[in-house]
């Protein structure tokens, strides 16, 4: 009556979603942060539509990166603090399976949620509706990549009392290509240049990180568990 890896992953994703929805305040915080930061920009600068439209992709992407980072800290830390991480590490499934499931679940409640509210932000920043599809696709790929990168950072900083700043310092430099190509794709879609090249690059980064990051994060977690 052994449990297969897929079954285990589904169970862990369900566990994570269940935990997230028991704490709606923590679920909403990154989203509200994203909405507020992007709303501050038009207030702080000259709200000319042409100027706003030029800055919109960058603003959108920086805000998305920062708000995803907000919740990354707790990815493994809450489990490490109450001892459930040890139970997960000894469940017989291999820690990589757990890391993949937890990171994917984290993306569902942060990255995927950001993608869903991004049209509201896009409208506020004057991004034309015709560019929404590209914007959402690039955000989806970018936030998923960021979750994988973040898993490495979160695993490395899990043993630190206040690892949040260090986590940002580890993850943000690695996220620069995401910002460049993500904002580039959105910018292209706004100004009528084909965004396909940038999107392919984002997709490649996403595949690259999702194949390697789980193993890196597993090694980091194993070290912190010792």
């Amino acid at each position, binding site marked *: 009556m052994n*449990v297969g890896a897929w079954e285990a992953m589904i169970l862990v994703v369900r566990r994570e979603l269940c935990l997230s929805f028991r704490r709606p305040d923590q679920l909403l915080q990154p989203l509200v942060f994203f909405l507020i930061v992007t709303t501050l920009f038009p207030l702080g600068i000259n709200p000319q539509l042409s100027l706003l439209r030029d800055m919109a992709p960058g603003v959108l992407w920086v805000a998305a990166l920062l708000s995803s980072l907000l919740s990354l800290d707790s990815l493994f830390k809450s489990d490490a603090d109450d001892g*459930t991480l040890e139970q997960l590490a000894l469940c*017989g499934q291999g820690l990589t399976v757990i890391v993949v499931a937890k990171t994917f679940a984290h993306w569902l409640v942060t990255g995927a949620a950001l993608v869903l509210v991004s049209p509201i932000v896009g409208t506020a920043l004057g991004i034309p509706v015709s560019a929404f599809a590209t914007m959402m696709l690039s955000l989806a790929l970018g936030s998923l990549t960021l979750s994988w990168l973040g898993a490495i950072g979160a695993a490395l900083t899990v043993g630190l009392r206040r690892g949040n700043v260090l986590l940002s310092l580890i993850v943000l430099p690695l996220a620069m290509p995401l910002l460049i190509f993500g904002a580039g794709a959105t910018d292209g879609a706004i100004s009528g240049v084909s965004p396909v090249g940038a999107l392919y690059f984002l997709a490649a980064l996403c595949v690259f990180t999702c194949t390697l990051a789980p193993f890196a994060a597993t090694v980091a977690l194993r070290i912190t568990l010792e």
Partner: protein
Amino acid sequence: MNSTGAELSVEGVHVWRGDRHVLKGVSVDLGARELLHVSGPNGTGKTTLLRVVCGLLRPEQGAVSWLGKSIASVRAEYQAALAYASHEPALKGDLTALENLRFAVGLKRRVSAADLRAGLERTGVAACADLPARVLSAGQRRRVAMARVLAMSAPLWLLDEPFTNLDDAGAGLVSGLLQDHVQQGGLALVVAHHDLKLDCKVRRLELTA
């Protein structure tokens, strides 16, 4: 099973924590129907030994083997065969006792809610099954953690201070569960300050500073 009949064997394990030499060549064998009671003053590495046996901590020197094979080489089977209870109850405060058990045990084996409820019933916390773990008392949490060990139906139990926070009835209950487990052919490694009064084969390992 190897020639000595031991299923779990720990050979010459040395662990350093920074400059501190915590475990100085611990060797012990454990076979079916045996319970190993690890005792000793605070800070002598009882928990460290348990974590080494679990495979959470790799010793600098020495090896732990299960059924004659190093635990690192048979990690999946070994983990499927063990139930570990750390000194923390390892429960999620936002999940109910039953959900905690379902998510923890469900990764090891397919288990029905009825089985899990039966486990909670045996440890005397059936009434807490649908309460969030954060509202439970420390003793009740310990009982839920014990129900998790039961539900894993693993041959090897590794328990760190299972009597902490328990009332007399609870301590008696855990002793009874341990005795049943060992008499039914299981193995147990228990870290405890208490003297264990059990009607089964108990071996002692006293760690010293």
